[in-house]
């Protein structure tokens, strides 16, 4: 049984949180829950996520999961944000099941961001 609490992937992401920061003129979402804080920002063009940035306060798994989400979703359709699920992140990093609550906070933040992005798109189209 390993007593290593972090996978290589989590360590790599934690060491290089390249998407940490802010975006001007972007859609935003923020969720504070379960003792963690997550703020997300997305800029879109032609229905595609051009850039994603985050700020977060939490454990290494949460920071790594948030960075991983930002990297993975850049270039994808904005509507994909609503499909983001905690289960995939939990499995791929991986994240211990005891921390599911924190990753669900990320899921809430991503879905909230998705709704904000889609609302902006609808406003632009209207």
């Amino acid at each position: 049984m390993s007593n290593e609490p972090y996978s290589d992937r989590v360590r790599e992401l934690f060491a290089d949180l390249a998407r940490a920061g802010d975006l001007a003129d972007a859609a935003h979402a923020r969720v504070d829950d379960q003792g963690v804080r997550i703020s997300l920002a997305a800029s879109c063009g032609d229905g595609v996520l051009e850039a994603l940035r985050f700020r977060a306060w939490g454990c290494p798994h949460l920071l790594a999961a948030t960075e991983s989400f930002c990297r993975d979703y850049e270039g994808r359709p904005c509507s994909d944000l609503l499909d983001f699920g905690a289960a995939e992140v939990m499995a791929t990093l991986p994240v211990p099941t005891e921390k599911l609550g924190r990753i669900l906070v990320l899921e809430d933040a991503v879905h909230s961001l998705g709704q904000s992005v889609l609302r902006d798109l609808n406003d632009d189209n209207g």
Partner: protein
Amino acid sequence: MYLDYAASTPVDPRVVETMKTLMLDDYANPSSTHAAGRRIVAHIEHATGQLAALLGCRARDLIWTSGATESDNLAIAGAAQYRADRGRHLITMSTEHKAVTDVCSALEKQGFEVSRLHPDRSGLLDLAALAAAIRDDTQLVSIMHINNETGVIQDIEAIGSICRERDVLFHVDAAQSVGKLPIDLGVLPVDLLSTTAHKIYGPQGIGALYIADRPGCHVEPLLYGGGQQRSLRPGTLAAALIAGFGHAAEIAHGSMHDDLQHLSALRDRMWAKISELPGIVRNGSAEASFPGILNVSIDDVEGESLLLALEPMCVATGSACNAKTQEPSYVLRALGLSDEMAQSAIRFSLGRPTTAAEVDLAADLYRRAVERLRALAPRRTA
């Protein structure tokens, strides 16, 4: 960089040489009556004398164990059982090491009553509260000398005096203090004292329990078989480890003054370099504290991320945590810290090999880690 000397220390090379002699050349069983066995007995007696000299006690009052945890168990459970017909009440503190709190919990399941006194915000025991907590059926008080997390030093002389006045045994978990602070058991009102080698540059796996030779002070054994050590802790004596402990004790005895000066200078240097950080607090008394330990918490920094950001520096967190459980330190919670502040705690523990350059680097790493994590975080909402 290793700044976790309160957890364990490297074995002094001189101690290694002593142990090698026994492991390679004098390897007989000390219970054997032949010449080789008698040589081992001589080595053990020499080591017992070295530890007794450090503690200011008689060699015959020392029992070798596997470490401080076993010593604590033997002292507390053994004394409680020995005096059970007089009463079944024990007193300890909520900030004790698990080796004490867990054996107390086990005794509660056997029908003993345990009072756990809380410290003040500086980590110190209120002596009046102790005196008030002692009852007619109280048999044992167990208070540690130096707290392993905060470095806070309890006044064991004053505590022991209160216990003597009330005819209550006094046990001291001195795992962090033996060889680091002067202890004279010839003078101190201490009945039982636990110690271990690996905090003073001796080997892991060997400890000792002092049992005062006075009426009413005795322990029932936890183990049976063999009859060694007056049957109080039977089993073949680990001669090489004992010799290593003895030598480490002798070295610590000779270098204690220099060690304390060295650690004080480094601890003060470390604190001076990080104390300007906004929201940082020093946990535990700044006055009654062992200079080898500096425990700090910092506002608005998540503890687990801080610990990872500090790697490869080896320090201890204030949380009894791993990635699975993030329970804040019960010791720091007892000092009144919030869960968040307790989780952000880092224990820097310095040792004989620690250099000023290491302390400077550690302080720089800590500052940068705090600034990095704070820069990542969204602002707190009101």
